[in-house]
């Protein structure tokens, strides 16, 4: 029986076609597995790519949009513009009440700094302050201050309004912000403090640039006494008095 069963089953073989179909099937499965593992790798790596792109995006945005320059415009309204690496305005802040009024109807964000300064100076809200004796001061704090200043000196700020353009250290920006003052005003305040005027940062905020400049020139011409309370009140009142007469002066300015 052993032999007979051996002989009987010995005649049963897998056909070549069966073997071939197994080989083909395994190759097919192998390709699927390879494709799936490739897909799996891609799926696994997708979040990594996404994070990488996000980082590049944020890095790029930070590089171009981070504040690198500050431009302050002071008459009595004090306004400070923050510029990005492309010299475009990313923020416009008022540093006193008059400044807030001027900025109320102006949209400066995204504009080139020169266009923004010109818009600001030539705005209807700013015009009343630009009297004949007004001291328009534009102060720049930037690593490329020279480039920004040369642009300003060729603009209406200097050519039409005879504004003064100057620069300040980047450290001054922080100190000015701590006192709640614009760059331009802070610089004059610093000088007046050095001369022993006795003025506080708070006093200065309510005095126009014109009067601060006049006070500074008095000290530069030899004045030594501190500012009295009476004088301070006059200066602050003078400031508001000046504002009431702005329309009159504006006409005067137009004649220039």
């Amino acid at each position, binding site marked *: 029986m052993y032999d007979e*069963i051996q002989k009987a089953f010995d005649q049963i073989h*897998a056909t070549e076609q069966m073997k071939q179909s197994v080989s083909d099937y*395994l190759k097919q499965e192998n390709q699927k597995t390879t494709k799936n593992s490739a897909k799996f790798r891609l799926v696994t790596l997708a979040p990594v790519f996404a994070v990488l792109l996000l980082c590049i995006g944020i890095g790029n945005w930070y590089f171009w949009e981070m504040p690198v320059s500050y431009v302050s415009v002071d008459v009595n309204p004090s306004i400070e513009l923050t510029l990005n690496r492309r010299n475009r305005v990313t923020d416009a802040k008022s540093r006193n009440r008059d400044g807030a009024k001027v900025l109320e109807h102006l949209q400066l964000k995204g504009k080139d700094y020169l266009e923004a300064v010109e818009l600001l100076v030539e705005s209807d809200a700013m015009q009343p302050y630009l009297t004949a004796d007004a001291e328009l001061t534009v102060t720049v704090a930037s690593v490329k201050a020279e480039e920004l200043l040369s642009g300003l000196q060729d603009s209406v700020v200097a050519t039409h309004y005879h504004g003064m353009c100057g620069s300040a250290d980047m450290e001054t920006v922080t100190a000015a912000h701590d006192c709640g003052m614009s760059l331009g005003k802070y610089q004059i305040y610093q000088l007046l403090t050095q001369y022993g005027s006795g003025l506080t940062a708070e006093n200065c905020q309510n005095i126009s640039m014109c009067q601060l400049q006049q006070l500074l020139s008095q000290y530069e011409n030899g004045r030594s006494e501190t500012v009295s309370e009476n004088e301070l009140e006059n200066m602050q009142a003078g400031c508001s008095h000046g504002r009431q007469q702005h329309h009159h002066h504006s006409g005067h300015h137009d004649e220039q």
Partner: protein
Amino acid sequence: MRGEQEVEQAIESYSDMIRRICLLHLNNHEDTEDVLQEVFLKYVLHSAVFESKEHEKAWLIRVTLNACKDLKRKLFRHSTVPLDVLSEEAASVMPEQMELLEIVLSLPAKYKDVIYLHYYEGYTAKEIGTMLHKKENTVYSLLSRGRELLKQRLGGGRNV
């Protein structure tokens, strides 16, 4: 995963054996091809190392038997007697052996496996017990009962 060469070698060595086990349980070539594919796919994906060729062969027998059972369950073919498949082999099997094969295939499944494994593959009752997860004594009983059935169906003229 196993290398292509190792798999090709296994296909060459064990396809006949798997084909014979399929003959015991399945009805046609298509089902046999399905089982062959499934068994060798499992072989490819089986990462454990076989201790010996004998270990590998026993593993393949067990996987083939399970694959046949699964396929039958899937296709609801429990009650079908796998004799049709023999007609596909008629051209290659000698007429005198055809009768014996028909009788073996007509046995209940539990006898066919032990008869085949003992008489053709030469496994002892103990080895078959390990392979099929059955007690050695159960295998002896199945072999003895299977032999009786074969004798009866062969007409009692042969000495099994």
